[in-house]
Structure formats: structure tokens, C-alpha cells
């Protein structure tokens, strides 16, 4: 009798663990290791150190957007304007530098500032005007897509590169070290990314901002009744997302330096997909920055790895679409009845 009861409890505990997002993250880590192992065995050129650096540089801007979008996602919303916004901000930043001769730091500040402003607009539309989040951010997505080209006259923008003054800011993310065998790139950006993941994890779990963000997603009415200024914190969640999109814009500029107008649509899907793969619930109310980080790792690994086994970028679209569908289905089953 006693034995039966304890096995029953254990069974319950086990099924609760399988449903938990911690379990999803464990599986994700296993998938990452397996996938890396697969690419490692399948392609000798994948094993090079430069491939690892490439995976890192590829993931910076996606990771920043994904960390940012985790917050609106947790409130039960989302942000589709990140991809085209990123291109729009960095285009305008480069334009200010090239045409008006602004110093680099001012251009960076403006780039980030535009992100925050767009986040505030999105948040205002969603929280105050009650516009469905996907429509609000769809509109800002299109607005940014047009705006970047209109303001810069449709020309592509360049950020300082090579021997130009100010090109050192790229070293923040990718330092080239001269060794006796040649030049070796060091993905310095990874350090900042991991720091940011830790900081935002703390913000989400240990501060008022994070607690309110989660509360808005799980029970907005209760939060309102307990006297919290929900409007303010709801807008704040979108502003965090905007801030990180601004960071992503600078990082993108530092990594690729050449920015073409009309690009960027679809970046946000990778970021949103990564957050959902990492265990952020589509219905809001729960999420994890560390999970998001793992999700981005998975997507970047696929992005960089697939060409090594002969599958081009088109396959990557197909596979990320499939993963996104799969992740949402798992999320639904985990949180469903």
C-alpha cells in the first residue's frame, strides 16, 4: 500500500518534470550536442576553428533580438517589427555618419534610440490602444521597411570598415589577433552575449520588471486589481524589446558593415522561433532567457552547418519553419489540457 503510493507520487513528479520547461531545455542541449556531432562527422571542413567563429558572429544579432522579444512574448504579445526595424535603424545610423558626418558614437546612440522609440510606439499601440500585437507590430514592420529606403534614398549604407577611422568598433565583437601562424579571429562578442544573457535572466526572474512582465502574461486583470500601473510595465516590456533590437542593429552593422535596404524581413522569425524553441510559452506567462539562448544556438548552428552538408539557404528556411511549427506544437501539448 505504502509502496504503491510512493511510486505513484514519483510517477506524478516525473510527469511534472517532463512537462516542465527545464526538461525542454535539457532536450535542447542534447539536440545541440547531437547536431554539432552530426555536422562534425559529416563534414571535415566544419571542424575548423573558423566555423565556430562563424557560428558566433552569425548568432549575435539574432540572439539580441531573441532576448528582447522574450519579454513581449511573455506578456502574451510579440514583435514582428524587429527584422526590418534593425535594417532601418542601422541604415539611418550609417546615413547620418556618411552624409552628415556624425561621429560614430552619436550614430550608435541614435540607432539604439530609434529602437527604443519604436518599442515605445509598439507598446503604446498594444497596451493603450488595444490593437492586437501582431497587427500593431506588422504595421511598424512595414513602416520601417519603407522608412529605411525613403530616408536614405534607397541606397545601401556602410558602417566603418577596414582601415577607416572608427572601424575599431568592430573589434568589440570580433578581435583579430596576430599569431605566428597567421591571423586568428577571436569571437569577443560571445563574452558580451553571455553577460547579457545572465543579466537579462536576472532581470526577468529577480526584479520587479521581470515579475510584472510575467504577471501581465499570466493574469493581467489580477495585476491591475492589485494596484500596479499595468500600462507602464506593458509598454516597458516592448521598450526592452526595442532596446535590444537597437543593440542588434549596431551588432549587425559591426558584423556585416554593409546594409541593404529592403532586407531584414524574416530575421524576426528566427528570433521569435528561437524564443519559442527555448520554452517561452506562446500564450504568455512563462519564459526563460537561457532557453532563448539555447534556441538561438540551435538556429545559428543550422544556419552555418547546413551548407557544409550541401543544403543551401533555402533548406534552412524550410527547416526553421518546420522547427517553429514543431516547437509550438510541443509548447501546446506541454501547456495544453
Amino acid at each position, binding site marked *: 500500500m505504502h509502496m504503491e503510493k510512493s511510486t505513484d507520487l514519483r510517477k506524478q513528479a516525473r510527469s511534472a518534470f517532463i512537462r516542465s520547461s527545464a526538461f525542454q531545455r535539457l532536450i535542447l542541449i542534447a539536440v545541440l550536442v547531437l547536431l554539432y556531432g552530426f555536422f562534425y562527422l559529416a563534414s571535415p571542413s566544419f571542424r575548423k576553428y573558423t566555423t565556430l567563429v562563424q557560428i558566433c558572429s552569425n548568432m549575435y544579432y539574432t540572439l539580441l533580438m531573441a532576448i528582447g522579444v522574450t519579454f513581449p512574448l511573455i506578456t502574451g504579445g510579440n514583435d514582428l517589427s524587429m527584422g526590418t526595424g534593425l535594417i532601418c535603424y542601422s541604415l539611418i545610423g550609417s546615413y547620418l555618419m556618411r552624409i552628415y558626418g556624425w561621429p560614430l558614437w552619436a550614430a550608435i546612440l541614435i540607432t539604439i534610440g530609434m529602437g527604443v522609440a519604436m518599442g515605445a510606439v509598439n507598446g503604446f499601440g498594444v497596451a493603450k490602444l488595444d490593437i492586437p500585437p501582431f*497587427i*500593431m507590430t506588422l504595421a511598424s*514592420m512595414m513602416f520601417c521597411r*519603407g522608412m529605411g529606403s*525613403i530616408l536614405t534614398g534607397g541606397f545601401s549604407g556602410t558602417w566603418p570598415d577596414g582601415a577607416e577611422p572608427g572601424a575599431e568598433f568592430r573589434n568589440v565583437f570580433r578581435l583579430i589577433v596576430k599569431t605566428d601562424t597567421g591571423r586568428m579571429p577571436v569571437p569577443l562578442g560571445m563574452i558580451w552575449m553571455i553577460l547579457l544573457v545572465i543579466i537579462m535572466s536576472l532581470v526577468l526572474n529577480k526584479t520587479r520588471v521581470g515579475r510584472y512582465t510575467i504577471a501581465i502574461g499570466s493574469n493581467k486583470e489580477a495585476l491591475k486589481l492589485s494596484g500596479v500601473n499595468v500600462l507602464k510595465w506593458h509598454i516597458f516590456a516592448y521598450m526592452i524589446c526595442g532596446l535590444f533590437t537597437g543593440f542588434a542593429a549596431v551588432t549587425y552593422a559591426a558584423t556585416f558593415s554593409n546594409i541593404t535596404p529592403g532586407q531584414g524581413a524574416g530575421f524576426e522569425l528566427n528570433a521569435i522561433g528561437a524564443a519559442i524553441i527555448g520554452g517561452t510559452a506562446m500564450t504568455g506567462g512563462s519564459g526563460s532567457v537561457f532557453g532563448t539562448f539555447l534556441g538561438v544556438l540551435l538556429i545559428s548552428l543550422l544556419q552555418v552547418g547546413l551548407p557544409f552538408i550541401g543544403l543551401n539557404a533555402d533548406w534552412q*528556411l*524550410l527547416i526553421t*519553419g518546420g522547427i517553429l511549427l514543431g516547437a509550438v506544437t510541443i509548447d*501546446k501539448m506541454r501547456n495544453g489540457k
Partner: protein
Amino acid sequence: MKDLLNRFKSLKLVRIMGFNRVVLIGVIIVLCLIFQVLSAVLNHGNVFLTYARFTSAMNYGYFIGFLALGVTFVIATGGIDFSVGPVMFCAALISGYCFNNYGFPMWVSLIMCPLIGMVFGTVGGFFVSYLHLPSFITSLALMQIAKGVGSIFTKTQNVSWPGSSDPGGWYRSLSNLDITVGGQRVNIPTGLIILIVVAILCSIVLNKTKAGRYMICLGANREAVRLSGVDTRRWEMLAYVICGTLAGFAAIFYVGCYTTVQPVKGDTFNNEAIAACVMGGTSMAGGLASILGTVIGSFIIAIMQEGILSMGFNIAFQYSLTALILLGAVIADVMSRRRRN
């Protein structure tokens, strides 16, 4: 003033069409006049109101119209579909590639377009209605998949459908028929006729059949429909299937007017199709849909696109303007719902 407005509202034609639709037609007329003046001022005396510009605007209106008609069904159930644009391109890419490289006859390629769209619609509908996934994320995923599939199938190359003089070029007369009357070539917009016929069919399905009733009721009060013993999943899925099929139809008219399709493109058309729906009075919350409004909304989008080109601006303005219009329409929708509650 108020008296005049009331008398206008009680006119028979206005009552049949609905007041909002009449306002929208007014918007079209005002837009045309604004563009007429602005193109003359800004673009060296360019004339906007010409027959050539009309047919060119209509060309844009056909495929946007078909996409928007499909999306109307989905929005009526309370969902959303972001995948229509890429699905349209995917259908055009695959069937065009089959025609060019595998020697499919033209009529087979034309039938393939709506079928491919239907496949995507069925998959999306299954995930949304039977697995209860949020429609917007499902359609975002499908959008990526449609882009990927189209591009993999054509090996990342553009697909050019045959020109009107090439063999198999007859499909172009589905959208534009060129006939010679007294030595002069006249362009008849056949696509407009087909669009109107399809719109009437859609209107009948949405308003007069059991399927349409259920779809609208699903958007208004899903729980009530389910509790009254209706298999909600089946009817919800049907809305997505219709949407996908119409996206496939749109492909025929897209290539009929623009010939060449590029892989990994098409996502801007989703936004315009959704904007057309919402402008036409279909509520984002579901439960309220107007086919006539959607058609007029698509024409507004088409005229705006043509007007922006006529004023000598580039296409980027179109994106930003559509965004503002979409926002305006949604805010109006939200406000009117608030007032009613």
C-alpha cells in the same frame, strides 16, 4: 447636417451596400483626385487618370484581391494568415517551373496553382484547428516553409512564365484580353470580371451557406458554437483551405500580369492583403466580415500603389503608407467595438 446624413444612410443603394462601403468608394474617388493633382505637381505634369494607369492599377488589384478574399475567411473565424503572399509565389514558382522544364501543358500548370495553395491551406488549417496552435505563428512558420519549398524546387532561380506570343501564353488573357477593334488595340480587363465573379461566390458562401455562417459564428463566439454541438474544427479548417486555394488562384493572375516570379519573396503582399480586409470592415477580432468591403479595400491598395508610382516616388513609400492605413483601419475597428460594448 445630421438630418442629411441620416437621409443619405436610408437611400436604398446605400442600405444594400452598407454605409461603410459607400464611404470607402468615396475614399477611392478622393484618392484618385489627390493623385491626379499631385502627379501633375510633383512629377512634371504627369496625368494619373488615364486608361493605361487604370489597367495597371487593376493588374495589381487582381492578385491582391484574391489574396484578400481568402484572408477574409480566416479573419472572420478570428484567425490570421501571414502566409498568403509566399504561398502565392510558391504556387507560381512550382507550376511555372513544371511548365518550363518538365513540359507540362499550360492547363495542368494552371490547375496546379490552386492545388498547391490548397495543400498549404490544409496543412495550416490542420495545425490551427485540430492541434489548436495560434494561427499567426502557424502561418509565420508556413510562410518560411512556402519560401523554402518554392526556392528549393526551382533551385533558387527566377521563373518566367511564357509571354503572350509564346506557346501557352493564352493564360494571360485570363487577366488581360487584348483585342483589335478598328485597327486599335484595346485592353479588356478580364481579370476584373473573374475577380467579381469569385467575390460574388465568396459572398454567397460566407453569407448564405452553413459553412460561412459557422465561420462567422466561430469568430463571434467559438464556445457557443462548440457547445451547440457543431464540429468547430472542421469549419475552421475549411476557412484556411479556402484561403490557401484563393492564394493559389492569385498566383495565376500575378504571373498573368507580371510574368516573372522570384523565390524567397512575396511577404509584403500578406500585409497588403490583410490591410485590404481590415480597411473593408472585416473585424480583426473575428465575427464580422464583408466581401464587398474587401474587394474595395484591395482596389484602394492598388490605386495607392499606382498613385505613388505616378507621383514619381519609389515603392518604399507604398510600404510605409500601407502601414499607416492598416493602423488607422485597425484603430477605427477597435474604437467601434469599444463603443458598442
